[in-house]
């Protein structure tokens, strides 16, 4: 195997370990936004799409690259926007102004 390939495999393995370490700390509350956020990250294939479109030199390659970029673009833009929409809702409301012994809703309890 070439040195380049060995380096690439090393990066791959280390990135997996980083992924485990970072992800395992996320609370269940945020799992849906997390899934959606991770979903947008693999939209990075758009970079791959751009690179193959630049290298393409025949109709088949052009077609494949075009579809890849449409798909990747939808994945990236849609993924981040929809995740942001979800997270926008996680703002902390001031405790309900009704008062009256709502002990269970003490701000700060869930942070």
């Amino acid at each position, binding site marked *: 195997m070439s040195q380049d390939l060995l380096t690439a495999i090393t990066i791959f393995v280390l*990135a997996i370990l980083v992924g485990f370490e970072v992800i395992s700390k996320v609370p269940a509350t945020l799992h849906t936004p997390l899934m959606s956020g991770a979903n947008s990250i693999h939209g*990075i294939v758009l970079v791959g799409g751009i*690179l193959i479109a630049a*290298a393409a030199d025949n109709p*088949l390659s052009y077609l494949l690259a075009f579809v890849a970029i449409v798909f990747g673009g939808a*994945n990236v833009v849609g993924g981040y926007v929809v995740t942001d929409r979800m997270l926008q809702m996680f703002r902390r409301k001031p405790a309900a102004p009704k008062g009256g012994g709502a002990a269970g809703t003490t701000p700060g309890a869930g942070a």
Partner: protein
Amino acid sequence: MSEAWVYTVIYAAWLVGAACFVLGLHFMNSPASARFGNRLSAGGMVVAVVFTLVFVLYNGISAVGLSIIVVGFVIGGGLGLYLARSVAMTAMPQLVSLFNAVGGGAAALVAIDDYVRVANVGEDVFSTAIFVVLGAVIGSVTFTGSLIAGGKLQGLIAGRPIPVPGGRSTTGLLALVALAGLVLLVLGASGGVVALDPTAKIVVLFVVVLAALVFGVTMVLPIGGADMPVVISLLNAATGTAAAMAGFVIDNPVLIISGALVGASGGILTKLMADAMNRSVANIIAGGFGGGEGTVAATTAEGGQVREISADDAAIQLAYAQSVIVVPGYGLAVAQAQHAVRELAEQLESRGVDVKYAIHPVAGRMPGHMNVLLAEANVPYPALREMEEINPEFERADVALVVGANDVTNPAARRPGTPVSGMPILDVDKAKSIVVIKRSMGRGYAGIDNELYTNPKTGMLFADAKEGLASLTAAVKAL
């Protein structure tokens, strides 16, 4: 500027992008910083994409190539933006599934396209062949698999398990085709032991891709709708892996790092979700859960043991309680009743009732989905309690108000021999009294009757979640 210097700058930009992804995920640790995390990740994406564009422009790109990039991105990005903005919060899981499908498709296409190019010039070494086939196969499986999963959630395809002709042997055969193709392409790689001309190689690859596309369909069809979140999560991890494989093919570090990150995160998330249902991932993929047929119900809905309750009676119970635990389920999400439940809670809180929400890990359609829906309705998130935290509190609660939740409250899960056995449940039946808002006595995804409904402490308020909550709110106000 020298070529090497430019590449160094681009490489650094890719590294910045990858670092932003890692940090972005890290900031998603807490609701307070999650939005920043997502934006940081998006910023990293912009850096990576823009610098890639600069790179290909610097290297010289044909007019056709450039217009493909621009037009493709405008169409794809515009479509993604429109869908992401317009979709209802309840339809979020299927949208994520759709984005996952196109991501997998893109990864497969990148791998295939690059292979077509290198095979034509005879540069397809054996490692390229391995990564191409892996990327193309995984990407294709996630493409069709995610489409089917999204279709099931959207109701375009029946949610029940759909048997595939030939069952597992069909799936096995398809896997065998893909494997044979892999072996053939590796042996036939340039300098390999089998002589294959470029056209033959490309034909072999397309056969493999076709098999993978069909495999995606036959893998997901037999899985019931209740398990779709786990499946989508698994496919999400698979897309990450496919992106990493595509990264190996085109020798690009940012694709490898990001793909591996998503593969790892999706893997963990999948396991967490499966754990929440006390099932193994393998068991879920084997399919067949949630059929409804052939399962013997412990008690029947027609048994006459169900007590119906009026909105006024339920309102009195709630208004004079000290502590109420709301158990929201998918029925609440479908009826878009998250605002209605918040209004009722505010009415009760204004009367001094302590209101908490018990969130089962798989309430809604994905882990955390219910939290998102309630957050949309401005329910303060400290009031949302996770299962382990809230279960000991049920016995002290005066009323448990179940809104459109079914299987996750079924006490039958505590004993063996039922389809829900072993699934962690909310201990709703331990509350002093129980009010269930439900449209009918219909069954949940597990396809069995819920013993909670025939509990003598339970009053059933038959209504749509939204109407039921509105009538309760009105009745509480009138007291």
